[in-house]
Structure formats: structure tokens, C-alpha cells
């Protein structure tokens, strides 16, 4: 019964969005977009809640619940199980699409015709994904035989952060669908100007903030849950989320220029198309199972081809309209080489170069597999070595850009505004290099530039107006740039100073890494809610006193049968100490790996700073408009 209602509701959404999207090609029949959007939104919302309800009740009449849940699972993971699989997460994806359309429908934009076209195109996207859901991935399929117990959710996924990770990531991915709809609506109604950019600005930022947080959360999860000690593996699935982020970052910087200077119209449109295309490509990579990844998602070739066809349709429509309208969009203003516009545009190109490098590295193995029948993978060094020079240029432009005036500026002015902070950073890094440990030239370059970026951005954020109060609209930009500088700084510092050591240890052994001495205290069997565990206890010693206690675990889950290593991490202000172990079969010792990871907390902090920066840019803008 519940599944029946769910299917009817999804069909209602399918029809409503089809009717809405007809406004793209016909002007005769006027459609109350607000009403229809509300219908789609509420029908998808209710069917999503019904799905969650099935999971909470462990209703094993439904395939999706059988394959992804278990009656003994804690409640929170039963709920999260609803979107911890392909079908449910696709329903969530559509829910977010309709939320964006719904919220946009009730925004205060006065230009009715524009609004109509934006919502029509957004509805077309909703229609496409709903079709996808109904015909290849219906979440409300009944089981053919009676089942009394479910197979359970992969224990690696039974984690609080991972429960909220997909919804956040999807708001980011899907947010860019509305950006594309803005581009289409703007082109059809000839409204790609500074006012259009001002309307788009908060939406582009919302998507960017959530995508930033989503990537950060995923990385944080991989760090403590997978137990490999790293936080970024240049894995296809990670790259899939990084690519739309890079395009989206370039995009909203362009939206800024368009809003202020009314130039770069066609470029901004192109970036809007590009960004959502990469959201779709990312989805394709993750769900088609076409690439070898460390995190596999349930995969099915039919799903992959549907997404590719959908992407092709979106691209044909977008570029069709662009070919007609694009050349007419641009205003005649010319760019001066030394100006804020130019430095932002330069950074745009650098971001897209990074995107290209990542794209190539992600898809190259696919190409060789298809055309040369050779199975290969691309090592992380490809990314590191290729992105290094681009990152250096990016940092330089980020340092000088915000200190350059719009329109036209003098090089001497720019140098004057940053030279002291640059020399200060250089001195700090050099002092550090001499006093602690010798650094290589590339490390010194990266560390100095990122530290300069942090200092310069802080200084820009603290700039005051005539009343001696901080200029709030500039605060967001500064925070986000401090975040990025800190990100590069901590990534490089972590890469340079991280240590790891592997021990084969028996109880009462003493383990030594750098200046840290550990004592292996005990091993015991413990029992959790739905797993059995072997827990070891290690003390971090200072002479004879115990400073900290680490308790890494090995968990044995029975539904589905899986063994996982739980890390034990203690965060100090500057350094994480990270202990993970496992027990080889038939052995009388445990394998312990201890990582000393400096600056790792600052990586998470910098992601949060970027997100807060984006948020404060939205908040203080709204005040300005009123």
C-alpha cells in the first residue's frame, strides 16, 4: 500500500514537471508555476518520507529495505539507510531539485517572464530525473518472495557523518541545476546583465557552500573511518566531486564581475553550463561503476547510459540556445591587463586548468581500458606534480587580485600593498626551515605564498570604513580566502612533516615514533550493538605517567559479514596522533600503525572557514539590497 502511494506521488511529480517544462517551447497556455512546483515538491517530499518510514519499520516486503537494512540496526542508521543506496539517494536528489525550484518560485524576483522560463527548465531537469527513477531505479519495488530479515548496511557506511554527507553533497551538486536554469532563462528572455547576476549570486553561493562542506565531510570521513591515514586519495569518486567545485568556484567569481562591471556575459553562461555538466558527469562516474574506485556505489550499466543520454540532451539544448543568443550577450567594454577583472579572469583559467588536469587523470584509465584493453591507474604523483605550478600561480593571483582596483591599476600600487606581508611570511618560513628542519624550494614557495595569502586576506578583512567599523560585505571574501590559504598551508605542512610507523606488537611492548613513546597495555574482547570487537589499549607515556590512552578496535559485523578497523585518534592543537591496528589470522601479535599528522585539524578548519566565508557573503549582501 505504501509503495503504491509512493509510486503514484512520483508519477504526479513526473506529470506536473512535464506540464511546467512545456513553457520552454509554448507561450499560449499559461501555467501557474508556483502551484505546479508546490505539487511536485510536496509529492516528492511525502514519497521520500514514506521511504524513510519503510526503513524505520524495517518493512521487508520491499527490496530496497531488504538489501540495505537490518532490524537490529540502530535507528539513526535505519533512517540513513534510506539514502545509503542508489534508489533512495536518487529520490533524495529529486527532492533537492524540487526544493530549489520551490524556494526559487517564492523568491522576490519581479521579472515574471524570466522566472517562468527558469522554473520551466528546472522542471525539465526534474522530469528527466523522475523518469530515470521510475524506469530504472524504482525504490518502491516489492520483493517476490517473503523475507524475514534484511542484509544490513555496509558497516563502513554506518557512521553519523556519512549519514549526513550525501544530503549535503547533493544540495551542492543539485544547486548548480538552478544555476543552469538561470542561464537558460536569462538567455531566452535576454536578461543576462548585472541585475541577473545579482539574482543568481546567492544561489550560486548556496550551491558552492554545500559542495565545499560535502567534499570536506567526505574527506574527513575517509580520514578516520577507512584507517589508511590519508584524507584525499585522488580517487575517481573524490575527483567527481572536486570537478564541479572547481567549475563552480570559477563561476561565482565571474558572477561577481558581471554584477559589478556588466562584462563577461557569455563566459558566465558557458561556466554555468559547464558546472552543471560536471555535476552530471560526477554522478555518472559514481553510479555507472565504469571506473575502479576505492568507494564503489551499487552500479548498473543501464543507469550510466541514462545519465549520459540526459547529459547529452541538456548540452544540446543549452548550446542550442547559446549558439543563438551567446554572441549578442557581451557588452563592448575591454579588459585592462592590470585590473581586478583580469586577475579574477586569470584565476578562472587556472581553476579550469586544474579541472582539466583532474578530468584527464580521472578518465585516462577509462580510455586505455576501452581502446587499448589495458587496465591502468593513475598515481597520485601525476596530480601533485602537474598541479604544483598551477597552484603557485593561483596563490599569486589570489594575493594580488583583491588588492587590485577595478578597471585599471598600477603594478607599483599592488606591490606596495603586499610587500611587507610577503617579506614577513618569507622570514617566518625561512626561520622555520633553519630552526626546525630543512625545506625544499617548492615547499618554501608554497608555504610562503599560502602564508602571505592568509596574512593579506586577514588584513583585507580588517579594513575599516570612515566610521571605523569593518566593511561587512568584504568580510566573506576575506574569510574564504584565508580558508584557502590555510588549506594549502596545512596540506603542504602535513605532507612534509607527517610520520608513520608500523609495529608488530605484543602486550607490554614499548613502541617509539619520533618523540612519542607508547606502551601496549592490553587486548580484550568487547561487544557493541551489532558487532563483536577486539579492543587494544595503548598508553602514550611521558616517563612513567600516562598522558593519553588510545583504544583502536577491530569490529566483526555479521550483517553483512564484514571486518573493519576502527581508528583511535587524539587531536592536539597542532598534531593528530592516529592509531589503527589489525590482527593477522593465527598470530600472537597485533599489527599497529601509528601516524603523527601535524596540521591536519587545520585542513578541516580551512574548509569550515571557506563555507562560513560564503555564508557571510550571502547574509551581508541581503542587507545591502534592502
Amino acid at each position, binding site marked *: 500500500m505504501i509503495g503504491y502511494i509512493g509510486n503514484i506521488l512520483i508519477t504526479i511529480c513526473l506529470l506536473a514537471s512535464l506540464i511546467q517544462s512545456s513553457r520552454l517551447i509554448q507561450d499560449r497556455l499559461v501555467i501557474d508555476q508556483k502551484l505546479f512546483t508546490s505539487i511536485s515538491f510536496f509529492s516528492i517530499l511525502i514519497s521520500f518520507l514514506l521511504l524513510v518510514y519503510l526503513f524505520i519499520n524495517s518493512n521487508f516486503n520491499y527490496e530496497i529495505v531488504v538489501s540495505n537494512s537490518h532490524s537490529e540496526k540502530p535507528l539513526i542508521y535505519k533512517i540513513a539507510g534510506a539514502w545509503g543506496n542508489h534508489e533512495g539517494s536518487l529520490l533524495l536528489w529529486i527532492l533537492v531539485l524540487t526544493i530549489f525550484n520551490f524556494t526559487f518560485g517564492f523568491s522576490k524576483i519581479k521579472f515574471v517572464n524570466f522566472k517562468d522560463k527558469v522554473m520551466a527548465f528546472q522542471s525539465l531537469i526534474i522530469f528527466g530525473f523522475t523518469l530515470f527513477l521510475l524506469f530504472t531505479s524504482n525504490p518502491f519495488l516489492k520483493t517476490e518472495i517473503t523475507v524475514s530479515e534484511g542484509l544490513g548496511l555496509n558497516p563502513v557506511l554506518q557512521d553519523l557523518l556519512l549519514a549526513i554527507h550525501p544530503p549535503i553533497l547533493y544540495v551542492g551538486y543539485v544547486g548548480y541545476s538552478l544555476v543552469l536554469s538561470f542561464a537558460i532563462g536569462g538567455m531566452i528572455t535576454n536578461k543576462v546583465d548585472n541585475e541577473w547576476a545579482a539574482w543568481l549570486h546567492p544561489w550560486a553561493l548556496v550551491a558552492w557552500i554545500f559542495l565545499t562542506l560535502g567534499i570536506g565531510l567526505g574527506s574527513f570521513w575517509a580520514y578516520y573511518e577507512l584507517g589508511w591515514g590519508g584524507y584525499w586519495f585522488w580517487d575517481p569518486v573524490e575527483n567527481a566531486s572536486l570537478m564541479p567545485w572547481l567549475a563552480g568556484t570559477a563561476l561565482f567569481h565571474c558572477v561577481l564581475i558581471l554584477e559589478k562591471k556588466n562584462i563577461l556575459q557569455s563566459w558566465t553562461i558557458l561556466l554555468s553550463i559547464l558546472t552543471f555538466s560536471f555535476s552530471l558527469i560526477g554522478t555518472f562516474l559514481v553510479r555507472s561503476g565504469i571506473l575502479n574506485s576505492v568507494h564503489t556505489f551499487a552500479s548498473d550499466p543501464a543507469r550510466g547510459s541514462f545519465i549520459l543520454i540526459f547529459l547529452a540532451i541538456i548540452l544540446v539544448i543549452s548550446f542550442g540556445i547559446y549558439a543563438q543568443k551567446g554572441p549578442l550577450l557581451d557588452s563592448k567594454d575591454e579588459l585592462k591587463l592590470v585590473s581586478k577583472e583580469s586577475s579574477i579572469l586569470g584565476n578562472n583559467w587556472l581553476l579550469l586548468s586544474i579541472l582539466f588536469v583532474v578530468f584527464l587523470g580521472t578518465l585516462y584509465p577509462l580510455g586505455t581500458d576501452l581502446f587499448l584493453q589495458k587496465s*591502468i591507474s*593513475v598515481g597520485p604523483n601525476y596530480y601533485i606534480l602537474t598541479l604544483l605550478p598551477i597552484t603557485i600561480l593561483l596563490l599569486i593571483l589570489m594575493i594580488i587580485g583583491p588588492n587590485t582596483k577595478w578597471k585599471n591599476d598600477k603594478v607599483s600600487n599592488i606591490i606596495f600593498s603586499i610587500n611587507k606581508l610577503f617579506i614577513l611570511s618569507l622570514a617566518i618560513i625561512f626561520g622555520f626551515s633553519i630552526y626546525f628542519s630543512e625545506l625544499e624550494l617548492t615547499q618554501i614557495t608554497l608555504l610562503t605564498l599560502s602564508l602571505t595569502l592568509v596574512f593579506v586576506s586577514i588584513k583585507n578583512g580588517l579594513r575599516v570604513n570612515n566610521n571605523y567599523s569593518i566593511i561587512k560585505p568584504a568580510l566573506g571574501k576575506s574569510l574564504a580566502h584565508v580558508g584557502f590559504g590555510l588549506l594549502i598551508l596545512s596540506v603542504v605542512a602535513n605532507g612534509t612533516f607527517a610520520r608513520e610507523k608500523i609495529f608488530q606488537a605484543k602486550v607490554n611492548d614499548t613502541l617509539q615514533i619520533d618523540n612519542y613513546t607508547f606502551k601496549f597495555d592490553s587486548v580484550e574482547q568487547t561487544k557493541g550493538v551489532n558487532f563483536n570487537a577486539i579492543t587494544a589499549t595503548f598508553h602514550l607515556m611521558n616517563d612513567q605517567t600516562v598522558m593519553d590512552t588510545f583504544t583502536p578496535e577491530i569490529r566483526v559485523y555479521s550483517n553483512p559479514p564484514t571486518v573493519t578497523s576502527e581508528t583511535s585518534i587524539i587531536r592536539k592543537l597542532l598534531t593528530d596522533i592516529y592509531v589503527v591496528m589489525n590482527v593477522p589470522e593465527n*598470530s600472537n601479535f597485533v599489527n599497529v600503525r601509528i601516524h603523527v599528522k601535524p596540521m591536519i585539524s587545520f585542513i578541516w578548519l580551512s574548509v569550515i572557514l571557506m563555507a562560513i566565508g560564503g555564508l557571510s557573503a550571502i547574509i551581508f549582501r541581503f542587507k545591502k539590497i534592502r
Partner: protein
Amino acid sequence: MSKKVKKRLITVLLSFLILIIATLLITMNLRDNIIYFYSPSDLKDAEIDRQNIIRVGGLVKESSYNYDEKSKIYNFVITDNMNEISVTYVGIMPNLFAENKGVVVEGLATSKSSVTALEVLAKHDENYMPPEVIEALKKDGKWQEE
């Protein structure tokens, strides 16, 4: 030449230069960092460069796995039921490593049938089979659909 044309020319030349440098950088780094995957049968027929890191994969052969406590060296044999590769490894064995299960090993080939592992990759749930291993087994006709 007018000022405007000159400016355009410089822009075009500069973009070309950047494009060339970028292409060189990307292709060189890509070439140096590609890791090839071999099944035991592939490795037997392949030209082996002892300097390059490779990946090999297949099933862990039954009762081939042992550990020497003194030298701290793990030994096991990867098989595709036609050919075999013997692997030596110093480090942490992943939890999911087991005989008769799929495994992928990253390391250096010391001969056409032996590899010194730098990393053993077996990072998934019990049913997980690395895609390369499935592919390798299929090619040799040893793969059974469930």
C-alpha cells in the same frame, strides 16, 4: 601595426606558449605516473621493467599464505588458476586479506612470476572483488557469475 592588433598578437602568442607548456607538463607527468595492472598470465608474457611500480591481482592461493616472524616477511601466491605470482611483503596486512579471496598488490616485479609488494589492497567487504581481478578471471574463463 596598431596598438590594438599588437596587444591581440601578444595575447595569442602568450596563450599558445602557456598551452604548450601545460600540454608538455601534463603528458610527461601522466606518462611517469601510470600504474599498469597485470594478471599472473599477463605478467608472464609482459616486458618487465624492474623500476616501475605495477599492480598485480588475482585470487590468493589456498594454503600459500605464511608469515616469518623473524624477518617479518609475509609470503603468499596470487593465482588466476593458470599462472601464479609469488608475493613478498613487509607491512600491515589488511583485515580482509584471506586465502581464496581477491587481492590487488602494488609493488615492483622482481621476475615474471614474483613481486615485492609495497602495498596490499584488499579494502572492502567480504564479497568485494576488485574489478581488475574479475576482469582477469573472466579473460581466463575462471569467473563464475553468482
